[in-house]
């Protein structure tokens, strides 16, 4: 069993500022209207710091990082 982290987006709160895609391009792209597309919700150890920074940078607090347990 390993602890992993998972990214989630509150789609109602998100208003497409796009900071997350700048700070975490490995996992997040933007669609043509500027709203995030998640390539993968699982966050690897290597990307954790970047992911935390992206979460903290979201001005509307729409991005969240959850701990998840995986077998």
């Amino acid at each position, binding site marked *: 069993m390993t602890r992993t982290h998972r990214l989630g987006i509150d*789609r109602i709160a998100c208003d*497409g500022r796009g900071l997350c895609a700048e700070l975490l391009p490995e996992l997040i792209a933007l669609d043509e*209207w*500027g*709203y995030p*597309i998640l390539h993968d919700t699982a966050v690897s150890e290597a990307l954790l710091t970047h992911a935390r920074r992206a979460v903290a940078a979201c001005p509307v607090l729409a991005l969240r990082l959850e701990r998840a347990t995986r077998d």
Partner: protein
Amino acid sequence: MNERPDAVLTEQAQDGRSGPHGTRLLHGWYSTGGRADLAEHLGRYGPPPLPPGRRPAIGLVQAVEEAGLTGRGGAAFPTGRKLRSVAARRGPAVVVANGMESEPASRKDEVLLDLAPHLVLDGAALAASAVGAAAVHLCLPRTRADQVHRLAAAVEERSRAGLDRVPVLVHALPHHYVSSEETSLVHWLNGGEARPTATPPRPFEKGVDGRPTLVDNVETLAHLALIARYGPQWFRGAGRPDAPGTTLVTLSGAVRAPGVYEIALGTQLGSALDTAGGAAEPLQAILVGGFFGSWLPAAGAAAVPFTRPDLAAAGAGPGAGVLVALAQDACGLAETARVLDYLAGQSARQCGPCTFGLPAVAEDFVQLAWGRADAALIERLHRRTGQLPGRGACRHPDGAARLAATALHAFAEDVHRHLAGGPCAAAGRPAVLPVPDTRSPESEGWR
């Protein structure tokens, strides 16, 4: 509807618990041809076998698990598992019976509530026992005012007869497409607008009044009422081991006798249409599930069994039990364009991908059906429909994207023809799918 092929129903009327053609929920209707009032209902079924006590009735949860009942509101999620997760939470729970039926091509919940209201109300009361709920809320669309009055009277009559242990409240909600999604119901019951809310928390964690809340479709509850009486083995006597029971379907389009029917799960789509008298004309496609469903080419679809796994393998899902037969000479692209335009208009406009993506897809479909389209449009449609799923607070964008994507596939030849030569002659024909002529949810309000 006298001659119906019913070889698919493994169980016949002999046990007195099923009606003609193996019907269960529609048993009363087939026996009397009328609405079952409380006296008739009690005569046929007796009072609901409510387990004693206020604590969750785990025996009933177990029976539903063993029966293998799945939700009839769209997602076909195992009902027993849902009961168990609500029952496991602390404190009194709440049951919400979803009778909203926002799907325009579906009539089955309306018909069930009309013909067998007490089966639904029994189911709600029994589900309340199963999860340890202190209240039941029955949500109905405001547009069906007669039904709201009849159900309120039925609840009143039951309370005079001392049938229910917990209060049952009947509510009339705005009738927009996404107002019947479960978080919309919870939000409205809590005094807010009937629009979806962000999850988590999901209703089973924190729903009405902050309590763990079970939201179930009214048909699901009616099946539960029969499982509580006759047991899981009886329930499994129809359908298939991996898809037990019967289900209500609304059959329409190019069939001889459109209407609401009850079929065994596992019935092939072609035989399902035969219950409605069969195809009235040669068919080109079947819409499966509803407006948030899938188009399947008729030739391949006829042999697909109506179960979640079989439909999934064919690129569809049971949805709200809707089957619309599309005749050879109709224009599937025009049909789809009209529905997409409606679905885009029904967005709650809370999430970016839904607010911008749905109108963009609908607009391209309108161009494809009636205007001028080029290859860039098709490429754009594929990209946009591919990006929509999973990117809303609710699954509204997923449904619209699925309809669009399956239309491009099922009507691939028409797509080529429209690209090469513009709209076909059929594009101008009257609509087959019943797209409501409603004003925008904004102008009618969400409260």
